[in-house]
């Protein structure tokens, strides 16, 4: 099976869908002549031309809005945000138009649009460029939210996102674009809303997504020394949540830790934690733990950033704590 980087897997997904359906097009800053800020769209302008790979001005509200209109008119836009930090400028288009128009029009319009780009902290980009947006975009109905951590998942889920008739928020990561993994030659789709067990285990359920996946897997490795077998669940889709995958695992292990890039107050981590305590209360032998950002704006200084971003060591500590392992 060929080894692809995540950026290449994403590109393959876009390329295949553009080849399959001429309503699909890409729009965003530097997606065309610059081949994409992170080279996801490399070569697509050459292959499909300026009508289907559209360079925009630095005006997120504008091109997100144009994308919404195009989707209403029957096209299937893929809107690239150079980072999701810039989507804050376009938030009203996503919240009030993309997420609502199908409902407001009583189903007369569908909104087949994908907003994609890197999310959450990378490395020393300071507070305004290190924000985790899943809690914002999972916080209202009308959109689906995906966060990928492997090339296989990236390709299969982006293809499903492009074919979905609803707005999909698709999170990637600057620091993971070059992560490599096997991607089959033959076409495949991964259904939206299905979690994936990245590592099976019986002792502790570790729930994670996006940049958290590698941290959780490293933490699971660390915990092996204490005889703990962690089950690492990569949610892949954050909305709708795969409750069944989470609950089945927690009923088996009786404990859960969430490892993710994001703030602790409210949001996606809190939602999952709530569902576990509510839907698996009598199966819990310990409180649900969360290993995520400290509740501060992301510092620029590297030593302080290291304290804020979840590390395998911090995750392993939490895992051992709720497994009642004396360290």
């Amino acid at each position, binding site marked *: 099976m060929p080894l692809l980087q995540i950026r290449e897997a994403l590109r393959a997904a876009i390329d295949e869908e553009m080849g399959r359906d001429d309503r699909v097009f890409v729009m965003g800053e530097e997606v065309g002549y610059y081949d994409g800020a992170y080279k996801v769209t490399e070569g697509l302008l050459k292959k499909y031309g300026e009508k289907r790979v559209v360079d925009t001005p630095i005006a997120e509200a504008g091109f997100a809005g144009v994308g919404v209109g195009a989707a209403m008119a029957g096209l299937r836009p893929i809107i690239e945000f150079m980072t999701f930090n810039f989507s804050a400028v376009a938030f009203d288009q996503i919240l009030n138009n993309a997420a609502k128009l199908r409902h407001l029009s009583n189903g007369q319009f569908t909104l087949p649009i994908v907003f994609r780009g890197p999310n959450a902290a990378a490395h020393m980009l300071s507070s305004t460029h290190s924000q985790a947006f899943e809690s914002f975009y999972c916080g209202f109905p009308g959109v689906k939210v995906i966060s990928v951590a492997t090339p296989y998942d990236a390709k299969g889920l982006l293809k499903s996102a492009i074919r979905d008739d609803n707005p999909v928020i698709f999170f990637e990561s600057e620091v993971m674009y070059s992560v490599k993994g096997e991607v089959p030659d033959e076409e495949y789709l991964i259904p939206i809303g299905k979690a994936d067990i990245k590592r099976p285990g019986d002792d502790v359920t570790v729930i994670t997504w996006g940049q958290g996946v590698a941290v959780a897997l490293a933490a699971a490795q660390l915990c092996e020394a204490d005889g703990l077998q962690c089950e690492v669940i990569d949610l892949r889709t954050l909305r709708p949540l795969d409750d069944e995958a989470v609950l089945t695992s927690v009923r088996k292990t009786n404990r859960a830790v969430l490892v993710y890039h994001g703030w602790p107050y409210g949001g996606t981590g809190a939602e999952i934690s709530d569902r576990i305590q509510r839907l698996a209360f009598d*199966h819990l032998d*310990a409180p649900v733990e969360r290993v995520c950002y400290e509740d501060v704006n992301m510092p620029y200084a590297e030593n302080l950033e290291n304290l804020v971003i979840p*590390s395998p060591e911090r995750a392993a500590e939490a895992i051992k704590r709720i497994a009642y392992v004396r360290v």
Partner: protein
Amino acid sequence: MAKIVELPRLSDTMEEGVIAKWHVAEGDKVKRGQLIAEIETDKATMEFESFDAGVVLRLLAPEGETMAIGTPIAVLGKPGEDVEAALAAHGSGGATAAPAEAAPEPAAKAAPEPAPEPAAAPTEAAAAPAPSATPAPPASPAEGDRAPGRIAASPLARRLAREHGIELSSITGSGPHGRVIKTDVEAAAAGRAAAPGAAPAAASVPAGVELDASGRPLLVRPDEPVKLSQMRKAIARRMSQANAEIPHFYLTTVVDMDRAVALRDQLKSAIEAKVSFNDLVLMAASRALRVHPEVNAYWDGQTVVRRGNVHLGVAVAVDEGLIVPVVRHADQKGLRELAEQARDLGLRGRDKKLAPQEMSGSTFTVSNLGMFGIDEFSAVINPGEGAILAVGAIADTVVVVDGQVGVGKRMKMTLACDHRVMDGATGAKFLATMRGLLEQPLAMLA
């Protein structure tokens, strides 16, 4: 029979090389003389043209791996020929295949050193503006709401106790704060004593991590071994050899450069010649070496050999290190020609476009760090030569001329000499001649 292509020797000092880039793939047809690869040697990146014609049956050497000369790097032949048999006949399995792709790298830079964490769990209580400086003991989110008299037990423990018909109050909790947990109920159901209480892990600062005045850990960065370029390896090898074998001594002199500066200004404005101060130094050195052939000499292991030709090595800093292109027969060339050749060699050297023969055979070397603002320094002799001249910057200096204090342009030069080849006075005489030429530069041009 298929033919084995070996890593060729592309320069006289080359001992190993790296395939920088393959220009053919397996299955490609190759003509004699066709460019098939770029090979990085200790001196330059060289184009490697095939000596044979045929089809590339196999590429044995991955790009970027260091290999000894003679290592099989490819197999040429007719389609269908037995590669294994050819390799077996050659007596080698060839260079190993490229290693498989790396596993997915961890996201972020997953701190290589465990960073100490503020221990507070992510509860609302953590909404303080910054992580507290002194780690608090780990707090369990469930700890606060315990009323006196109520037995602390996990939901699972309660359910299990109910199912087993065991009174919670009869069970000793081994969890944090005496919480009854699953193992306690199971132990009670089996009639065993509860396991000794497991305490939660305490977060602590790992040993060796230093804290700043506010108690925050200073960043610990790991050392990184650098993958050596062929050039770096060659420099390391030759300079170690020089320092170990050659008994160096050093002589420094100050040169009045007032006239040289004026001459260069005139040349620049009058004939638009691009002449650097180093070109004037090269010219003076080449002439002085003819006057003092005992400096243009080297120790060959048994005896001193005086060199017939004056080939000047000119040290040039490049991204990866240092190269020394050679201006041949410098003593027979005029200033303009010397300047043009030195400039051309330097430019092409920085682009790694020099042929090995353009970087070998020097009899004396000039190294100039004046453009980096260095006043004076001493250099290591290039093995195969008897001396090297280290040239510093030209600086406005307070000087006394005829009893009057004034300002003059001065430059320091340091000659490193091989004591087996010459003595202090020999080097001093050579430097005096050079100084004379630079202080009366028109004499050189006459």
